[in-house]
């Protein structure tokens, strides 16, 4: 059953990634294929997650590979909010190849299996993992938006003759979305950290906890810089930094779980 759901999701995400690349070369022609690839892939992966949840004894995504699977779904879900609009297809070019790659990695590493599972009864840990992963996904999408914003800024500064050729969201829209995504992610991360803090006396302080705290500080700094200090570009650059922190945390998760 897992095979029946993973492969459609992988193929659809892969197809979307190629279609987004085609859409950049020839705007408008491949956009619909890309959007349908994202939608079909997301539906297949949603079905996969439901199947995993129903067939596992407990929370099936507490392993590194499992969390990667859930993380990919959360990223694509966040992207889907804007992904259907033609102007956000450039963001899809950044998100969908990553989603296809990470889902493939999760599949190879066994993250799409039922899993031994953490007991559902360990509510605090389940909530902690789910919310932190959701926040990571939010910061990932915010990083993609910030990259697009910095690219848009650079294009506007360089003033090429073909400046209007690539259909991208406006600078102001990207700024607003980056900041609101960071704000939502920060709230989610805070909500995810609180149950983690409750477990801190027994689990102790490790690199992942410190990394998560750094990510929280980065998120808060982004909001301060943008909202209070009016430093739009620096805030966008820091949002890219937050994406870097998420990647490091995912790798840290891999290291600790493999170890």
């Amino acid at each position, binding site marked *: 059953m897992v095979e029946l759901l993973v492969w459609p999701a992988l193929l659809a995400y892969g197809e979307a990634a190629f279609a987004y690349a085609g859409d950049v070369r020839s*705007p408008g022609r491949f956009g619909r294929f890309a959007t349908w690839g994202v939608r079909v892939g997301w539906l297949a992966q949603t079905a996969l997650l439901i199947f995993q949840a129903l067939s596992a004894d407990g929370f099936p995504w507490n392993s590194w590979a499992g969390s990667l699977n859930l993380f990919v779904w959360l990223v694509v879900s966040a992207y889907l909010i804007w992904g259907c609009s033609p102007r956000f297809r450039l963001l899809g070019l950044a998100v969908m190849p990553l989603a296809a790659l990470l889902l493939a990695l999760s599949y190879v590493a066994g993250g799409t299996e039922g899993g031994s599972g953490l007991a559902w009864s360990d509510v605090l840990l389940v909530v902690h993992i789910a919310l932190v992963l959701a926040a990571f996904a939010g910061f990932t999408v915010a990083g993609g938006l910030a990259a697009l914003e910095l690219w848009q800024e650079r294009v506007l500064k360089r003033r090429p003759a073909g400046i*209007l050729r690539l259909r991208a969201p406006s*600078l102001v829209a990207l700024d607003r979305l980056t900041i609101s995504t960071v704000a939502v992610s920060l709230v989610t991360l805070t909500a995810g950290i609180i149950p983690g803090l409750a477990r801190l006396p027994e689990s102790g302080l490790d690199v992942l906890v410190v990394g998560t705290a750094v990510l929280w500080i980065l998120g808060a700094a982004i909001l301060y810089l943008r909202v209070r200090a009016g430093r739009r*570009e620096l805030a966008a650059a820091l949002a890219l930094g937050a994406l870097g922190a998420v990647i490091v945390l995912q790798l840290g998760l891999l290291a600790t779980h493999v170890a």
Partner: protein
Amino acid sequence: MRLLLVGTSHRLAPVEVRERVALDSDGEAALARRLGEGGEAVCLSTCNRTELYLAAADTEVAGERATVELADLGRIPRGELEPYLYRLEQDAAATHLFRVAAGLDSLVPGEGEIQGQVRAAYERGAVGPLLDRLFRHALQTGKRARSETAIGERPASVASAAAALAAQVFGDLSGRELLVVGAGKVGQLAAKHLVSRGAALTVVANRTFDHASALASQFEASAQPLDSVESQLSEADIVVSSTSAREQIVSREQVERALPARKGRPLLLLDLAVPRDLDPAIRELHGSFLFDIDDLQAVVEETLTGRRGEAVRAEEIVAAEGERFRDWLGSLDAVPAIASLRDRAESIRRGELAKASPRLAGLSERERHAVESLTSQIVNKLLHQPIMRLKEAGPGEDGEQRAPEGRLQG
């Protein structure tokens, strides 16, 4: 009913001829009413074309009437007007209108105004089933060409390029404050484009205060002297400058002083003046984006090249839609033949039932109904294939339905 187009456009006629046969909206409606007596008519008149779309049983007569009307309208002898006129019939006329609605027959490929003009002409026309279908299909084709290609997306003038760049920075321009420096024609045109996209012209600054007041009063803005520009920089989102001053109007330092108060809001500066009004060093400042006249002209040049490329794709869409309309026209031609075939079959059925009625006298009402239904079904099934053949066959060269008897059977 057959479709006919009689018209003239920038491709055939110089402006001296086009302006004489041009119609205003009331004139379009009145001419459509006159030509539509006993048929259907729509008059499409823009600065580039005057075209009369007619649906008539006799296209020769309708074409003559249309030519006479145009000659009378322009007070041009018919012989002098005819070299500037084109006549297209049936699917050729339809495909022409589809190209017009898609902006492919315009001076600037993909220009957006024509779609509205086609819609207005349709609404003012004397339309029946044929022209109603034709114009609705044309509007859909125009919409499809614009949504599936980028033909109409990019600007074709410096003023519209300025507005498109503002949208690239701010997205929706609603509520964005516009400061115009200089009250000349160029700045006025750019301001009009920006205001049409939702920007609010708040201040016009000019050396001659009266000129500033005149422009400001058109947009309910306030007029200011030129030396007040710096104080406006922290509020305005878009600055359009087009004075004839020899010296710089806004320096890098002035913008730099204004930026902190903007709290990260981008400032777009459009310098349309030669010599330039705005210090090029403003480009070095974060959060400000400066475009001069050369930048905007380069965007327009690129746009026109891009539009020509997109036009090839739009032509493919128009050709496909033209084909669809041709099929529909073909099926329309088959309607009288189909109706006659049905009538004949029905009269045979009724005749045979009438002949058999003495033998069916003992049947109950229900049984009689069953026989009626059964014979109808047999006739319908027998007719199905010939009718499909008639629809597929379409019209011949002469416009008459072609479908030899022999071909009607399987």
